[in-house]
């Protein structure tokens, strides 16, 4: 009896019993924030599956991707899911931002959540980029090398920051242990916790979460 009661109140805590009619109108939110979160869940799930079969490294990275794409049963399907969820997430997050400006939802008193949202957009882009590097193809090596050279332009902290983020990528393979850890743990969990905060504030400001 008591347990059920706490369950209910926990659900109530997460979700209101009633919501403003406007907030569930599809033409108001277009579900874009919620779809981004859904894409993120798919990314987390397929990402964990990929981690069982992927090894970072100048040689290993590309080899394990080829193995995933051609040998492992359903490997290419899970990789495709991860890839398409990532592409769609970038699109839906960007459109979500346009929607928020369109409906004037960025203005005070919601300004803090707007800044959190900009941070989440940035994290999404970084996750997309590091994921691309983990392919370990020639293109990924070029991308990593260019990124390192750009960061080296930052006065003082540039070179160390580039090394911490990207390790020592070769110009023909961007797959390094550093990129792997940042992609799977660092940035992924930063995005997850920031999303939790984002939704909590949306709920507090009278919107709905997450779809």
């Amino acid at each position, binding site marked *: 009896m008591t347990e059920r009661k706490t369950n209910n109140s926990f659900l109530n805590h997460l979700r209101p019993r009633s919501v403003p009619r406007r907030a569930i109108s599809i033409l108001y939110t277009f579900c874009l924030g919620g779809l981004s979160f859904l894409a993120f869940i798919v990314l987390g799930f397929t990402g964990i599956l990929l981690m069982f079969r992927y090894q970072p490294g100048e040689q290993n990275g590309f080899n394990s991707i080829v193995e995933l794409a051609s040998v492992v049963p359903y490997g290419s399907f899970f990789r495709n899911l991860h890839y398409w969820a990532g592409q769609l997430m970038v699109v839906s997050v960007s459109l979500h931002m346009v929607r928020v400006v369109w409906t004037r939802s960025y203005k005070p008193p919601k300004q803090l959540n707007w800044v959190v949202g900009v941070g989440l957009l940035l994290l999404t882009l970084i996750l997309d980029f590091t994921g691309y590097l983990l392919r370990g193809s020639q293109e990924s090596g070029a991308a990593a090398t260019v990124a390192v050279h750009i960061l080296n332009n930052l006065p003082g902290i540039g070179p160390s920051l580039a090394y911490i983020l990207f390790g020592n990528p070769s*110009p023909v393979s961007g797959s390094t242990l550093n990129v792997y850890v940042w992609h799977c743990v660092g940035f992924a969990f930063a995005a997850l916790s920031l999303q939790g905060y984002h939704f909590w504030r949306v709920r507090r400001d009278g919107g709905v979460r997450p779809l």
Partner: protein
Amino acid sequence: MPREQEKLTVTNIENEGAEATGWSRRAVLRLGWISVLASGILSLWPITKYLSNQAGLVQTNSITFESKLEAGSDWYKVPNSRVWVKRDTSGYTALLANCTHLGCEVKYHSEQAKWLCPCHGSSYDIEGRPVGGPAPKALQRVAVQIRKDNTLTIEVNKPVGMDVRAI
């Protein structure tokens, strides 16, 4: 329900006790936050040092290459490296195929006698001087030494001028 009430009274008593000794809940909380923040800032330095140390990195300083190049040869890529070697009438020269713009590996096109960068379209003439695109300077030449058994030792981290030749 009664249990909850019990809890409430207990906390109240605790709070009163704290205030009596000069430690209000707010002060304790503030101290907690400050110590969390301080330890976060203090750990930033060791973490940065830990992550940015490159001492364990395996660095290739020199490459050996058994050259069978004739005088007046075209550029030849040393296998498993980004170093290219050429032997002209005055001797050996070696070049790093890293674009001077943003470091992408440039590709030698012998039919055009040009080096082309795949990333941002920089191009270099046969000697590695920039002729197009955003590349700011010539491809880096590095030192070559000829050993007694006629193999070459290429010092990858030792830049030299464009006219230096190993004889």
